[in-house]
């Protein structure tokens, strides 16, 4: 046994770093399913003590997966910045928690160590932090990105407008886009999950969104969340691709199950950069992640779900994305059983993402077979907004009729704007005020709204279905 501790006569042993991390992880169904969770609350608490005493340098000396077997491990080690690591190089995991919370450490100091931290260090420290620690430290991290507007400025909260439709019907999608815009949503991206991934269908949707954005001069970007290979092919054909989307995970094997690798992501990013469609920045990638994805692909190498998730952020940050979001409750109760586990995971993911320098958003969501409801989502939504979450989803009435799960709604963003004063991206906010959707003080207008959009709506309503 590599790590040992005696507690009131009971001996606890953990046979390696992976096991120690897994057993120190706050309880979740995924780790139980994988058979790597602590077998008692006491064992979990003891593992957290041992983890807190571990020097951060251990994570550099002992990779969780041998780099020769896994390109994500190679990426983590190759991109580690010794200079950035210097201020914290002598700390233990427990001391890192205190350093991150310390009054004498500035917010700028926290950002400075970003590339000195590996995902495993971020995951480890999160495991010994309470929810309020995760919120307080994430709030210190500033990550600003740009494409056709500026995402992540202090005091701002953006939204992805998600106008999905079960058959990708263009009128149905257009109706949801108009609804979302008229509720002030869509500055992070207007992003469709296509029901069918065929190039022809995805191309049709790309032109639909591009036309809406151009016609109404909306300072935002579009995305059709197809597989990266489909998007690459469409870029070659000259389709209007703003952002390249891909789901990613924290091991090479899990990424392989998604049909991707790092070289493919690099190729897609280069192609998107070459089309030069951004006006306010060159962050052209949009990634989605979620705890449990490596396990569900049977590609977790015995690593706990939360640490695998943090490793996915190492993949994400190598490609300077505009947006990353953790689709936290989508995967189902065998990974995150109830509202409590979903809330904890959402805060962990947001914290680790921000600490590692990512523009981190969250799909605050659940499925109907999880023990969760709207009240749990209200809790997570509010906590994340306090933590400085970059963006949330905007789905009509919180009900995604294509993916059959519940996310956050257009109204939810208005709620956060009212209670916390959070504003949309500045360029988008100006547009909302200019076209009369917002009233100039971060709320919906009560009078006539956007004659131009209402005109588009009337035109659409005239069409006989």
């Amino acid at each position, binding site marked *: 046994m590599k790590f040992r501790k005696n507690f009131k006569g009971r001996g606890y042993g953990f046979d390696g770093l992976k096991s120690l991390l897994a057993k120190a992880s706050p309880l979740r169904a995924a780790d139980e399913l994988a058979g790597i969770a602590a077998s008692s609350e006491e064992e979990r608490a003891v593992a957290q003590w041992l983890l807190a005493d571990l020097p951060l340098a251990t994570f550099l000396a002992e990779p969780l997966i041998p780099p020769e077997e896994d390109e994500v491990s190679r990426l983590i080690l190759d991109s580690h910045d010794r200079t950035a690591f210097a201020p914290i190089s002598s700390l233990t995991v427990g001391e890192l928690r205190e350093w991150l919370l310390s009054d004498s450490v500035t917010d700028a100091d926290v950002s400075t160590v970003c590339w000195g931290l590996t995902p495993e260090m971020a995951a480890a420290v999160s495991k010994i932090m309470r929810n309020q620690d995760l919120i307080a430290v994430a709030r210190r991290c500033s990550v600003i990105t740009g494409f056709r507007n500026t995402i992540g400025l202090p005091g701002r909260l953006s939204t992805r407008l998600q106008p999905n439709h079960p058959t990708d019907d263009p009128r149905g999608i257009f109706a949801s886009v108009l609804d979302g815009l008229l509720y002030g949503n869509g500055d992070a991206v207007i992003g469709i999950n296509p029901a069918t991934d065929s190039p022809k269908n995805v191309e049709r949707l790309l032109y639909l969104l591009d036309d809406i954005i151009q016609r109404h001069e909306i300072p935002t970007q579009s995305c059709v969340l197809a597989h990266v290979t489909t998007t690459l092919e469409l870029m070659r054909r000259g389709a209007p691709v703003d952002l390249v989307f891909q789901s990613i995970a924290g091991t090479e094997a899990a990424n392989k199950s998604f049909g991707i690798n790092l070289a493919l992501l690099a190729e897609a990013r280069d192609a998107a950069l070459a089309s030069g469609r951004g006006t306010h920045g060159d962050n052209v990638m949009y990634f989605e992640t979620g705890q449990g994805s490596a396990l569900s692909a049977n590609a977790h190498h015995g690593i706990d779900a939360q640490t695998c998730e943090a490793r996915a952020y190492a993949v994400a940050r190598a490609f300077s994305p505009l947006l990353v979001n953790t689709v936290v409750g989508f995967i189902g109760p065998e990974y995150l059983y109830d509202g409590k586990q979903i809330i904890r995971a959402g805060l962990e993911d947001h914290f680790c993402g921000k600490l590692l320098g990512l523009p981190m958003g969250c799909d605050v969501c659940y499925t*109907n077979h999880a023990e969760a409801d709207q009240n749990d989502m209200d809790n997570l939504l509010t906590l994340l907004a306090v933590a400085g979450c970059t963006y949330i989803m905007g789905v*009509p009435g919180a009900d995604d009729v294509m993916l059959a799960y519940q996310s956050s709604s257009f109204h939810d963003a208005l*709620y956060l704007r009212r209670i916390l004063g959070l504003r949309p991206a500045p360029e988008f906010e100006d547009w909302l005020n200019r076209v009369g959707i917002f009233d100039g003080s971060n709320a919906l207008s009560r009078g006539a*709204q956007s004659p131009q959009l209402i005109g588009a709506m009337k035109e659409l309503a005239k069409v006989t279905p």
Partner: protein
Amino acid sequence: MTDSWVALRRFTQARIALGRAGHALPTKAQLDFQLAHAQARDAVHLPWAIDDFAGEMRDLGLEPLILNTPVASREQYLRRPDLGRLLTEESRCRLTDLAAGETDVALILTNGLSSTAVERHGIPLLQAVAEGYRARNIRMAPISLVVNGRVALSDAIGGLLAARVAVIIVGERPGLSAADSLGIYLTYGPQPGNTDAERNCISNIRPPEGLGYEAAAAKLLYLTGEAMKRGLSGVALKDEMDELLTANQA
């Protein structure tokens, strides 16, 4: 406050133009959502009255065979999908004893994630499917009924019966707009360890809004025939079916 774009609702089932009370949902929209969620939750957690279901089948001349998984509770079913893919030792023995003659299709029905779906649509769908197989002289094993099964349970059952094709009808995960959908999964050469890429799926069976029983059965018969003829199922078969359908439309 109502929205002036209510007329757009006819273009989508999405919850658009809900109106607002300040920043929030109007009461009606809020309660509508809660009701839909309550129905979905009930569909997940209602127990399935499998003995009554078997009785109804017998009345219609269909022979049921009730089998069991090691799943002990609904909570365990949700937490341990791996157990929903296995049979108890006793059920395995019963199937081994049965697997004497030649079997083309092992047909299985499980409540999956929606007991409401099997209660509402299970019997008429089974009737349509069984009649179709009979009319084409496709040899069926007794129809297996299993509480708390997962799709891959069809690999275990089909394998023990040495069936050429396994077909499992399963209650789909309830959404807010539909809590009573059935899905059908077909696998050629069922054996434990088969992957989802080797399956074909027919989903959203719930007339009148979704796919009808006869239409679903017709699609299944086509897939079964092609799978047996070509000796495969899954992605390869799907591509060919899509091509065929496109060619027919053109």
